[in-house]
């Protein structure tokens, strides 16, 4: 279906494009301040920048669309030479889904939960009349095949919740491509995915864009991803273009200070030695929190055990002032483990100890002092902070509840807390919605610290933040750990972040510990095949990385199998390049202990693991 390709064929052009936000009082605030760039046929142009840089707003302008509260304020967005910003909704309808198609960040939210996948994929060409139902179905089927979706003949007859997140992301690509648009707009299409899934999706996107001969605008904050898919890069800051040019030039020869800052915020590859050994002055004999032989799950099964087992036989000891990183793909039980620590989910088996003393498994049975010792910081600061309370009240509540502080002493302590998270005291008077994402996450942290806890559970606290903002939050966590001696449990699917921060790493796979130990021992060299797969899936900032990686044996095996929660054998069996048929699928892997503190659960001997790839 490839179309004739002419490299001078301009599909989209932004000419001095301006977009304003309209405030409640009618006044306007410029969001996009005059942007010029071109997208030619067969070309992928990446728009990169932090949140607030206007990249999503600009990309939506290609569809003639403004989010509610925004309006076009000048310039032109030319699609095939027509200015889409000047058209009304009725004039735009035949263009949308037909000439230009949109892929959003979260496919799970973008698919209508009540309509079969196939109807949604084929909807645009059918309602626009460019294809008959049969033609659209045939096109969809060929796209499912090209996107390497499993069971392409039948996947369209399912509802969105019946397929996995990575599959849905690819189905969204099929939905965008079904009308054979000239221009694709991709808005952070892989940001919400696990690294292992991201590779599959990137590979499928890249191939399909090439085969269909479409042009694309690719919006992202991840330069390493951009290096894999884009031809040109446009660097945006605060609604203005800071720099633009071919990928190689921007990545290797950029002189612009903002681009350099973006590059610096790129997480380094998870490498040995990055785990920063923290000082030992806070160490005492008993660890701050110990979890022994934890089994946990949801629902109630027959014999009193949970219906769905999520965690099996997990052992973690969190030393004072140390950070334990917990990594694994989504669904592996990371957050469940944190909920067990916090007492939100009583384990079905195993013991918890705080400071050397046994502690009740459920929250309600814990004393106030025990509650104080373990605090939770959630991923979404937006939803974790009460929108109707001022920062004062948000921080004041734990101070009163745990410390009994009131009046001037409370106010003083709030100021200290704000200082700790590097926020100026006047912020105490503000509401959460008056803060940026990064600032909210700082308040979220301050709220946890207000209890003067011994263990802070951080569940994906940087995942919703931009690279630069996220890096700053990590820096803050490091300095807090130095100053306060608080222990952190740091949960993330982002290996690089965990590696740069944790003293000890627990790699979870399908609820079991695959590997566990000091950061440098776990990562250098990676022993367990799953740890290896995770590390090799982190994108590198060089062109051609994607092609190299998908060609490697590890990734090929890792991508074919799905995650299964099994009762027998090793759960990683189906995705493991070193799997031994007849052993790994039948017997649970033995727990090997290397040195004194490095645990590997695998049937393979350590020598075999090192030699095996």
């Amino acid at each position: 279906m490839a179309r004739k390709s002419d490299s001078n064929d301009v599909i989209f052009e932004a000419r001095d494009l301006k977009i304003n936000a309209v405030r409640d009082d009618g006044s306007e605030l410029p969001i996009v301040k005059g942007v010029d760039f071109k997208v030619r046929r067969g070309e992928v142009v990446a728009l990169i920048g932090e949140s607030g840089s206007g990249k999503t707003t600009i990309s939506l302008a290609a569809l003639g669309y403004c989010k509610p509260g925004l309006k076009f304020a000048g310039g032109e967005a030319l699609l095939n030479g027509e200015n889409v910003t000047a058209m009304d909704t009725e004039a735009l309808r035949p263009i949308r889904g037909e000439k230009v198609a949109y892929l959003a960040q979260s496919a799970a939210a973008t698919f209508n939960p009540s309509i079969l996948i196939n109807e949604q994929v084929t909807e645009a060409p059918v309602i626009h009349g460019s294809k008959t139902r049969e033609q659209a179905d045939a096109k969809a089927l060929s796209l499912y095949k090209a996107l390497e979706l499993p069971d392409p003949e039948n996947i369209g007859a399912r509802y969105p919740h019946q397929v996995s997140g990575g599959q849905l992301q690819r189905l969204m690509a099929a939905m965008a491509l079904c009308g054979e648009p000239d221009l694709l707009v991709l808005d952070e299409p892989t940001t919400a995915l696990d690294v292992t899934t991201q590779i599959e999706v990137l590979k499928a996107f890249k191939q399909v864009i090439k085969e269909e001969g479409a042009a694309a605008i690719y919006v992202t904050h991840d330069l390493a991803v951009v290096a894999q898919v884009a031809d040109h890069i446009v660097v945006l800051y605060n609604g203005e273009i800071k720099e633009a040019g071919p990928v190689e030039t921007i990545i290797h020869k950029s002189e612009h200070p903002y681009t350099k800052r973006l590059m610096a915020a790129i997480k380094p590859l998870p490498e040995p030695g990055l785990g920063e050994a923290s000082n030992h002055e806070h160490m005492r004999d008993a660890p701050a929190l110990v979890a022994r032989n934890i089994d946990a799950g949801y629902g109630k099964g027959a014999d009193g055990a949970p219906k769905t087992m999520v965690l099996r036989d997990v052992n973690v000891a969190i030393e004072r002032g140390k950070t334990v990183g917990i990594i694994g793909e989504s669904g592996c039980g990371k957050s469940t483990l944190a909920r067990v620590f916090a007492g939100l989910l009583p384990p079905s088996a195993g013991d918890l100890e705080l400071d050397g003393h046994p502690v009740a498994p459920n929250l309600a049975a814990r004393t106030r002092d025990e509650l104080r010792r373990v605090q939770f910081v959630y991923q979404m600061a937006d939803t974790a902070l009460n929108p109707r309370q001022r920062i004062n009240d948000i921080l004041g509540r734990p101070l009163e509840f745990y410390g009994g502080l009131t009046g001037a002493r409370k106010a003083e302590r709030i100021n200290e807390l704000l200082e700790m998270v590097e926020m100026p005291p006047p912020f105490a008077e503000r509401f959460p919605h008056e803060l940026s994402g990064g600032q909210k996450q700082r308040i979220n942290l301050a709220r946890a610290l207000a209890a003067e806890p011994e263990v802070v559970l951080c569940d994906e606290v940087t995942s919703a933040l931009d690279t630069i903002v996220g890096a700053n939050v990590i820096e803050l966590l490091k300095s807090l750990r130095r100053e306060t001696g608080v222990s952190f449990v740091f949960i993330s699917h982002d290996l690089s972040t965990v590696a740069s921060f944790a003293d000890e790493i627990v790699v979870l796979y399908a609820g079991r510990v695959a590997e566990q130990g000091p950061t440098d021992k776990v990562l250098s060299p990676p022993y367990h095949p799953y740890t290896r797969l995770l590390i090799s899936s982190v994108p590198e900032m060089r062109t051609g990385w994607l092609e190299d990686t998908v060609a490697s044996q590890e990734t090929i095996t890792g991508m074919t199998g799905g995650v299964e929660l099994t009762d027998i054998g090793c759960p990683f069996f189906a995705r493991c390049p070193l799997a031994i048929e007849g052993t790994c699928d039948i017997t649970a892997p033995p727990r090997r202990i290397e040195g004194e503190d490095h645990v590997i659960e695998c049937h393979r001997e350590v020598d075999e693991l090192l030699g095996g790839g």
Partner: protein
Amino acid sequence: MTSLILKRLGIGLVTVLAVSLIIFFGTKILPGDAAQIRLGQSATPENVAAFRARLGLDKPYIVQYLVWLKNFMMGDLGTSLASDVPISDLIADRYKNTVFVSALTAAIGVPISLALGIMAAMYPGTLYDRVLTLVSVSLVAAPEFFTATLLVLLFVFVLGIGNAIVVGSTEGKGLFELIAHFALPITTLCFVIASQLIRMSRAAVLNVMSSPYIEMAILKGVPRRRIIFRHALLNAIGPIVNVVALNLAYLVTGVIVVEVYFGYNGLATLIVQGVQTRDYVLIQGLGMIFCLTYVILMLIADIAAFASNARLRHPK
């Protein structure tokens, strides 16, 4: 989904049982002895005692309760203390009146209200939306007798059509005659249910309209009508059927003011009579029927909501 429905059915049964306990023992603690009431002040103690034994009133409460519950399940609601007529006969007559008025009200009021509410959701913030919101909020605030009075003033006294009092037999009348006969109470009830239905259907659809998959449909160039009817409504069915069921249950059980105002003989006026004559057998029977109506309507609403949810219909 079957297990969910069975669970709801179980909860419904438990509700009915709990209500039956409250109704039975609630009427027991009322002052006055049934036999005494039935036989009058002049009856001799011997007569009263004999009558008590005949009614089974000399047995322990719990036995009386179980016998009553058993009879209720067999369809025997007992005999009226005030008139010696089987309760089921008393109710059957009135039930027809109430169900007729409720069904007509629902048939007219529900579709119109939902259409108005959904249209408001299609064009939020427009003049139409704001006027509709104002009217429906005012209707919520206006008590039924006020609305009824306004309607009677307008139609009966100013325009000279319709009946201010709809008492009398409905036997032998054709459908159109009946509708004309009940026009004013039905209109009043339509106004009462319309306000909540409009506001809830508008909110349910608006809520869905702000979801990312609707934005996606806009960006695919889907026409507005198709967005509402194919993409949005399917996901708003759950909350909408719930409000509809609640309002239907209200129509059967809670229209005392309207029935008394227009003086027509429905179930609500019957329960008022039961209270006046201390006919507690009648009150018990009506209480159970109201409770069953609520439970069955809510069960239907729940099943409809489950059935409209793809996740429940097609589990992973």
